[in-house]
C-alpha cells in the first residue's frame, strides 16, 4: 500500500485537536447543566408535588384480566362458558404473620392441607405484593363466613371473578379440553404482560390450540390504595380489557351425546365428519373425565385416580389412539388394485380358507376357517375375505400399497386444529430399513393387505379417508372450529387448499357399491344395521387383532380375557348416493365390527340425516 505521507503539519494538527477537546468539554458542561436544571426542576420546584404523589397516593397498577371467549357447538349450544365465582386471595406483603393467618383461615373455612401447599408453591412464583389465590370456587357458606371476620384479616380478600365451566363435562372433555393453572414451564414461554392477572391457560383440546384467540387482551386499571394497600377506588386512567373471541365448532353436541352413550361401557373412539366442509361433527373418546376438576385445581388423589386407571380416561383415543385398521382398509386396497389394474372387477379367486406364498408352506389364515369359495373383488369386500386381499396385496407390492394409502391421509397428521395428534403408520421398505435396519418380507405385505402388521391408524384418519373416498377423491380436511366471533362480527376460519386424488369414477363407484352391499346385501357383514332405513349406508367392518393366534390354534372368544379381545371397527358414509356424513368407530375389545361398532355408527347417521333438509 502506498501511503500518502505528505508532511504532516503537526502544529496545526495539535492546535485543531486542542480546540476540539475544549469544544467537547464545553459541550459536555452544557449538557450536564441541562441535566442539573432538570434535576432542580424535579427535586426543588416539583418536590412537593412529587412527594405527595409518592406518599399519599399509592397508585398501583392492577391488571384487569379479559373475559375468555365462549365455545359453542354448531347449533349455538354452550360447550365452555364462564360462571361467576368467588376466590379467596392473599397478598403476602400485607399479611403480618402468614403462617398464623393461613392456620386461622384453614380452620375457619375448612381448607384441605393440599390447598395450602398449592398456595405456597404459587406464592413463590409471584411478587409479594401480588394477590395469590388460596381457595378457588368458594361456596356461599364460605363467602358468608369470611365476610363476617374480614376486618381481622389484613391482606386477605374475596375476589369475585369468572371460572371456566364445561356443562357437558366428560362428553366434551377430549375435544374442548380444559383450562388449568399456569405452570412454571408455561410461564416462561408466555407473553408476561398479556397474562398478568390471568391464572389459567388452555391445557388440552380446543382450549389449548385456540388459546391466543380465546384469551383476549389484558386491560389495566390504576388503583388508589390506602396505607395498608387495600384498594380504595379505581382511577380514570383505565385501559379496558378486550374479551377473547368466541368459537363456533362444527361439533354437534346431540350427535356427540349419542355417540358417547352408544359406546356404553366400552372404551373407544367415534369420529364423524361433514363431508362437504370437513367439519368434525362428532369427536368422542371414551372414557372421558370431568374437565371441571382441572379448572378449580384437581387434587393429587383425584389426579392419581385418573392417571392410574386401567381405562386411561386421560388418553385421547380419538386423536392419539393408534389401532390396526383391520378389514376397514380393504375398500382402499381394492381401489388401489383397480387403479393400478392389478385386479379386475370380474376376476375370480378361490378361497380355501388360507393363503400360501409360492414355494412356502406357511398358511395365512382367513377369518372363515372353511373358506369363502370362489370370490370376486366385490364379494371379497362384502364378506371381508382375507385370502383375496392377501393375494391382491402380494400382487400390488408394499410400495404401491404405501403410496396409494398415503394419498388418503394415512401415515400423516390430518392437520386437525388440535395439538398432539399422532401420525400413525403405513409401512414401506424404506421405513422398515430406517426403523429396524431390516429388509422387507413378503409375508409382511400380506398382513398389511388385511390391515394388520405394522399398519396403525387413528380414528380421525379413518374417518377422513372414508370422507375422502365418499368425496370421489377430493381430500377432506377435518376441522373443529368453523367460525371465530369477535365483537359481534364473526369470521369463518380459513379453509385449506383443495386437493384431489386422481381416481377413475367407475372404480370409485364400484368400491362404493360393494360397501353399500356390506350394509344392505344379504351376505354383508354389517347387514343388521341396513334394515328399516329409507337411505343407503356404505360401510365396511373391521376386526383388529390385539394378539396373534398361533398356526394350529383355534380362536375362541370366550376363552380369552376381555382385554385381549379384538378391537371392533366400522367405517361408513351416508347417504351413499349423495354422501353427507362420514364416520369411523373404534371399539376397544369390542370383538366383531359388524355387531358392536356398526350399530354405533348407525345411530349417529340416523340422527344426523333426520335433521338434514330432505
Amino acid at each position: 500500500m502506498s501511503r500518502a505521507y505528505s508532511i504532516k503539519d503537526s502544529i496545526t494538527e495539535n492546535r485543531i485537536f486542542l480546540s476540539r477537546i475544549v469544544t467537547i468539554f464545553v459541550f459536555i458542561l452544557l449538557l450536564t447543566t441541562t441535566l442539573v436544571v432538570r434535576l432542580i426542576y424535579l427535586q426543588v420546584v416539583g418536590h412537593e408535588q412529587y412527594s405527595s404523589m409518592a406518599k399519599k397516593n399509592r397508585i398501583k397498577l392492577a391488571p384487569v384480566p379479559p373475559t375468555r371467549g365462549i365455545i359453542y357447538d354448531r347449533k349455538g349450544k354452550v360447550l365452555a362458558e364462564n360462571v361467576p365465582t368467588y376466590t379467596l386471595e392473599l397478598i403476602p406483603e400485607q399479611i403480618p404473620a402468614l403462617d398464623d393467618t393461613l392456620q386461622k383461615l384453614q380452620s375457619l373455612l375448612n381448607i384441605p392441607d393440599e390447598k395450602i401447599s398449592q398456595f405456597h408453591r404459587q406464592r413463590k412464583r409471584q411478587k409479594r405484593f401480588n394477590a395469590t389465590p388460596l381457595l378457588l370456587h368458594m361456596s356461599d357458606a364460605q363467602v358468608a363466613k369470611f365476610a363476617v371476620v374480614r376486618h381481622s384479616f389484613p391482606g386477605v380478600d374475596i375476589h369475585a371473578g369468572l371460572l371456566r365451566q364445561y356443562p357437558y363435562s366428560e362428553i366434551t372433555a377430549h375435544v374442548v379440553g380444559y383450562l388449568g393453572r399456569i405452570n412454571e414451564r408455561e410461564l416462561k414461554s408466555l407473553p408476561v404482560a398479556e397474562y398478568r392477572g390471568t391464572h389459567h391457560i388452555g391445557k388440552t383440546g380446543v382450549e389449548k390450540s385456540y388459546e391466543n384467540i380465546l384469551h383476549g387482551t389484558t386491560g389495566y386499571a390504576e388503583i388508589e390504595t390506602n396505607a395498608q394497600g387495600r384498594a380504595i377506588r379505581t382511577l380514570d386512567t383505565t385501559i379496558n380489557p378486550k374479551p377473547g373471541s368466541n368459537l363456533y365448532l362444527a361439533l354437534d353436541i346431540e350427535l356427540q351425546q349419542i355417540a358417547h352413550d352408544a359406546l356404553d361401557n366400552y372404551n373407544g373412539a367415534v369420529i364423524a365428519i361433514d363431508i362437504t366442509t370437513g367439519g368434525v361433527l362428532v369427536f368422542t373418546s371414551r372414557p372421558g373425565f370431568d374437565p371441571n376438576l382441572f379448572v378449580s385445581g384437581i387434587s393429587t388423589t383425584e389426579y392419581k385416580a385418573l392417571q392410574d386407571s386401567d381405562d386411561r380416561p386421560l388418553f385421547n383415543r380419538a386423536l392419539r389412539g393408534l389401532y390396526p385398521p383391520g378389514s376397514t382398509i380393504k375398500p382402499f386396497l381394492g381401489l388401489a388394485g383397480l387403479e393400478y389394474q392389478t385386479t379386475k372387477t370380474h376376476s375370480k379367486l378361490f378361497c380355501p380358507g388360507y393363503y400360501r406364498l409360492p414355494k412356502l408352506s406357511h398358511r395365512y389364515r382367513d377369518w372363515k376357517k372353511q373358506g369363502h369359495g370362489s370370490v370376486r373383488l366385490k364379494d371379497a369386500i362384502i364378506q371381508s375375505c382375507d385370502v383375496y386381499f392377501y393375494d391382491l396385496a402380494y400382487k400390488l407390492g408394499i410400495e404401491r400399497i404405501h403410496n396409494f394409502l398415503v394419498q388418503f391421509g394415512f401415515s400423516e397428521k390430518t392437520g386437525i386444529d388440535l395439538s398432539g395428534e399422532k401420525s400413525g403408520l403405513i409401512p414401506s421398505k424404506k421405513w422398515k430399513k430406517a426403523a429396524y435396519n431390516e429388509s422387507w418380507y413378503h409375508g409382511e405385505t400380506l398382513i398389511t393387505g388385511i390391515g394388520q402388521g405394522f399398519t396403525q391408524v387413528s380414528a380421525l384418519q379413518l374417518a377422513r379417508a372414508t370422507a375422502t373416498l365418499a368425496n370421489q377423491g377430493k381430500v377432506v380436511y377435518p376441522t373443529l372450529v368453523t367460525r371465530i366471533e369477535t365483537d359481534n362480527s364473526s369470521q369463518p376460519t380459513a379453509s385449506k387448499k383443495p386437493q384431489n386424488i386422481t381416481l377413475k369414477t367407475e372404480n370409485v363407484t364400484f368400491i362404493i357399491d360393494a360397501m353399500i352391499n356390506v350394509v344392505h346385501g344379504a351376505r354383508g357383514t354389517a347387514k343388521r344395521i341396513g334394515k328399516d332405513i329409507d337411505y343407503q349406508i356404505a360401510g365396511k367392518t373391521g376386526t383388529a387383532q390385539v394378539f396373534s393366534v398361533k398356526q394350529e390354534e383355534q380362536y375362541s372368544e370366550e376363552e380369552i380375557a376381555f382385554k385381549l379381545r379384538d378391537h371392533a371397527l366400522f367405517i361408513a358414509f351416508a347417504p351413499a348416493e349423495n354422501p353427507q356424513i362420514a364416520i369411523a368407530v373404534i371399539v376397544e375389545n369390542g370383538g366383531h365390527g359388524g355387531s358392536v361398532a356398526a350399530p354405533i355408527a348407525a345411530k349417529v347417521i340416523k340422527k344426523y340425516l333426520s335433521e338434514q333438509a330432505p
Partner: protein
Amino acid sequence: MITETRQEHFHTSSLVGKILRKLHIDIPLLAGLLIISALSFTVLYSASGQNTEILIKQGVRMAIAFGFMILLAHINPQQFQRHSVLLYGLGVVLLVGVLLMGDMGKGAQRWLNLGFFRFQPSEMIKVTTPMMIAWYLAEHPLPPKWKQILIAGVLIFVPTLLIAKQPDLGTSILVASSGAAVLFFAGISWRFLLTTLVALASMTPILWHFMREYQRTRVLTFINPEADPLGAGYHIIQSKIAIGSGGVNGKGWLGSTQSELDFLPESSTDFIFAVFAEEFGLSGCLGLLCLYLLIISRCLYIAVQAQDSYSRLLAGSLTFTFFVYIFVNIGMVVGILPVVGVPLPLISYGGTSMVTLLSSFGILMSIHTHRKFLPT
C-alpha cells in the same frame, strides 16, 4: 491542570504508587473509578431490596472488568493501532454471526453462544469501531479529506446498522457516536458537521419508517408520556416521582419507597439513577455528576497529553462515549430523552457493559502510561 501535580506526587512516593506504575495504572483515574464502584454497591444494595446475592454477582463482574482494565493498560497502544483493522473486522463478522445464528434474549438477538460462554459482540464493537476509525484517519494527514470522511462514514455505518437490526437502539447510538467523535476530534470542518446534522435531521421521517413498533412507541411516549401512562409512559412517570420526591437532601440510604414498593421498574439496572436521586437528593446527584466530570476531565487530559494522532483520537472518542452513556441514561431517567436501553456507567447492575467500559479506561491508561517522555 491540577491533577498533574497530584499524579507526580503519587509517582514518586509510596510503594503502592510504584507497583501501580509498573502495572501501567493511572492513579487519579483509578481513584475515580473505585469511588464510583463503591457508590454502585451502595445504591445497588438499596435498589435490589437489600439482596446480597446481587451484590456478590456485581462484585464478581466488577473484578473481572477491572482485570480487563489492568490487562489492557499493560498493552502498548502501538499494539492496539497495529491490530485495529483485525479487531474491527472480527467484530463485524461476529455481529453478522449474531444476526444469522444468535440467541434471543428479551426479544432481541444480541448474544452469540460459543458453547462455554455467551458473548455479546456489540459490546466489543463499541471499542473497536473508534479504534478502526482512529487508525484509518491517522494513516492520512489530518484534518481528513472528503474521501476519507466518506469511507470513515461507511465504516461507522456498517456496525451501527447491524446492531440496530438486532434490535438494540441504545448500543447502536453509542457506536455511531463513538465513531463520529473520532471524526470530530480529527478536525472535520464545522460547515461539514452542520450540513451532516441538517441532512440527518431531514432523514428522520425515513428512519421512522424503518423503526420497530416498540421503538416508535418509545419515541411517542417520550414526546407525550401521558398518552400511555400504564404502558411505556409508566416508567417515566414513576421515575420522575422517585426523583422528585427525593428533594434536595434525599430520603437517606435505604429510604427509597418508590423502588422498595416496586413502583419503579428496572430499578437495579437502567433506572438505578432514580433510586440514587430519591435517596441522596439533589446534593447527591450534583456530587455524582461532579465525580463523573472529574473522571472525564482526567480522560480529556490524557487525550491532550497523548503523543500520536491515533492515541489522541482514540482517547478523545472513548471519553466522549463515556459521557454519552451518562447523558443518555440520566436524560432518559429524568425524562428529557426517550427510553433507550443504556445503563448508568459503572453503577447499573449488569456485566457486559461494565467490561467494555473498564476496557476503555484500560486503553486510556495504556495511552497515558506508555508515553515516551514521562514527566519526571
